């Protein structure tokens, strides 16, 4: 299944605001992170510290079943405030 993933911050600077990856269901959060790491292996150190949000809620490791309607995002370490 093709899944669109929103990217932010440093990841967005490097890969743009969304990427599309191929994943087989059900998906773990590590699957998302590793699929993006394959697009650019130099991002691995940021990705291992990132979390996944589905429909704007953090999710724990999974496994998850994603539908095309779901909004998936990778949340690198936050630095607001």
């Amino acid at each position, binding site marked *: 299944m093709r899944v669109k993933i*929103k990217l932010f911050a440093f990841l*967005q600077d490097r890969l743009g605001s969304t990427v599309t990856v191929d994943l087989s269901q059900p998906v773990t959060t590590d699957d998302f992170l590793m699929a993006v790491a394959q697009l650019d292996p130099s991002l691995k150190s940021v990705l291992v510290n990132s979390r996944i949000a589905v429909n704007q809620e953090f999710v724990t490791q999974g496994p998850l079943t994603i539908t095309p309607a779901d909004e998936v*995002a990778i949340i*690198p370490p936050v*630095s607001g405030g």
Partner: protein
Amino acid sequence: MHYLKISDDPINVDALYQKLVDPQYGGIDMFVGTVRQWTGSIQTTKITYSAYQPMAERQLEKIAAPIEAQGGRVVVAHRTGTLELTDIAVFVGVAAVHRAEAFKWCQHVIDTLKHEVPIWKKEYDTDKVRWGN
């Protein structure tokens, strides 16, 4: 009654303070985070904040809800966009009946925001550009 906003608009301390004023409260604690020039020997010239805006507001909602359930009032504003030195990046205000709660809750909101709210800073330092802290 809370007010939680992430936007490009400059933050006005007095306008946000007014949202916390109520005869039921006796103590208001407000934290303001500003763009600082020096971090050790690193000199910052400006910071650009970006956010996953709808999720960030939802996360703030979750932080504020238990405080409001205990009778407090929470006002948070966070800037996005490019900020110069001394510009306000974040305002967190909590009104409570007594001051100890106002302090405790205000500190809790900003501490939690810094871990759980999807906002990022890109810091322009004189030596290089840094993402995050």
